[in-house]
């Protein structure tokens, strides 16, 4: 019996094949590095732009809805939670396939704290540590980050690793992904790009292997 037809079926070894295939879709090269903006949160996604548009639209409506009901802007975690929850529903619904999208959701909360979250097709999300050592990392990047130096991918990685080593990181994990540029079609958030910490994080995401 094929366990990869309907999303709702578990395989004997407890896999949801459709979710795995969705993650495969994200892994494959020529991912789209498209950027969307909603409410100060920058949204960077990989693979299927059509899927991405649907997710982004839902996220945008949710942002405004939140403002309407509680009279406050969303926190980055809230919208990440919402997006992941949405993705999870598509792993447990009849006749639908999961979104072939992983996202990086980046932004500042109303009180100024920076946040970086990642979501997967499975509907899980992880926070990236922009925490304890953020200040030290930011200071180092502000000192040594220069736009011209960011031309070469190797240099960007080097700077990022240096920054992490400065704050005494023992185990460093670098996520890299190929990026296929789709200029002109999407509005990019320049204010966040100007922030060195996030510019590096975004470049991690978009590196050529």
């Amino acid at each position, binding site marked *: 019996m094929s366990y990869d037809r309907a999303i709702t079926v578990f395989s004997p070894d407890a896999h949801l094949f459709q979710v795995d295939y969705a993650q495969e879709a994200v892994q494959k090269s020529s991912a789209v590095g498209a950027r969307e*903006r*909603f*409410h100060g949160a920058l949204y960077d996604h990989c693979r299927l732009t059509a899927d991405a548009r649907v997710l982004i*639209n839902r996220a*945008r*409506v949710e*942002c*405004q*809805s939140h*403002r*309407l009901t509680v009279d406050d802007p969303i926190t980055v975690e809230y919208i990440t939670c919402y997006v992941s929850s949405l993705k999870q529903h598509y792993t447990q619904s009849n006749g639908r396939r999961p979104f072939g999208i992983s996202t990086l959701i980046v932004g500042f909360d109303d009180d100024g704290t920076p946040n970086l979250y990642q979501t997967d097709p499975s509907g899980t999300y992880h926070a990236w540590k922009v925490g304890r050592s953020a200040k030290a990392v930011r200071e180092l990047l502000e000192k040594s980050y220069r736009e011209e130096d960011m031309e070469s991918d190797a240099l960007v990685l080097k700077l990022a690793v240096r920054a992490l080593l400065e704050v005494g990181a023992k185990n460093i994990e670098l996520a890299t992904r190929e990026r296929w540029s789709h200029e002109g079609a999407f*509005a990019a958030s320049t204010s966040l790009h100007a922030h060195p910490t996030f510019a590096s994080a975004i470049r991690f995401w978009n590196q050529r292997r």
Partner: protein
Amino acid sequence: MEYLIGIRGQDFVLVASDNVAASSIIQMKHDYDKMFKLSEKILLLCVGEAGDTVQFAEYIQKNVQLYKMRNGYELSPEAAANFTRKNLADYLRSRTPYHVNLLLAGYDDTEGPALYYMDYLGALVKAPFAAHGYGAFLTLSILDRYYKPGLTSDEAVDLLKRCIEELNKRFILNLPSFTVRLIDKNGIQDMKMPLLDAK
């Protein structure tokens, strides 16, 4: 009673609203803001049934912002006014109509300043000057007499002062203070006008 007024000038729109929030015969607030910022250069002034005003205005406000997020650019004042009117008209023949009277004032970078008058029945007109409330009965004639196209901001402010003076003189209800704002190519500016406040 609640009062709204708008005057379109050469390259700006001047709007004012009274600051009283009443409940029956009691003044609950003397510094209540009846203007809702729809976007950087559009203001929605809203009076009418308690509750309906804020509910409807905030709904329009958030939808205008959503449009901006989705499309990357803002709705023009004309588009926003028509969108607002359509919502009013749709809800009118539902079980839950909104009883609100509105003035929408905005500055379009290509078309210039615009003032739109809307009422609770879903009427919409673009006008050089407009007012809502009992005060409108007294001040529209002042505006008819002294308004001319292409007013400068000083002239418009003087015209507004004349209107307020008339209200202070002939209107039985006390309107002690007003919020006054000016919209032009630079956005929305608050104007401090202590002279408008009744002595």
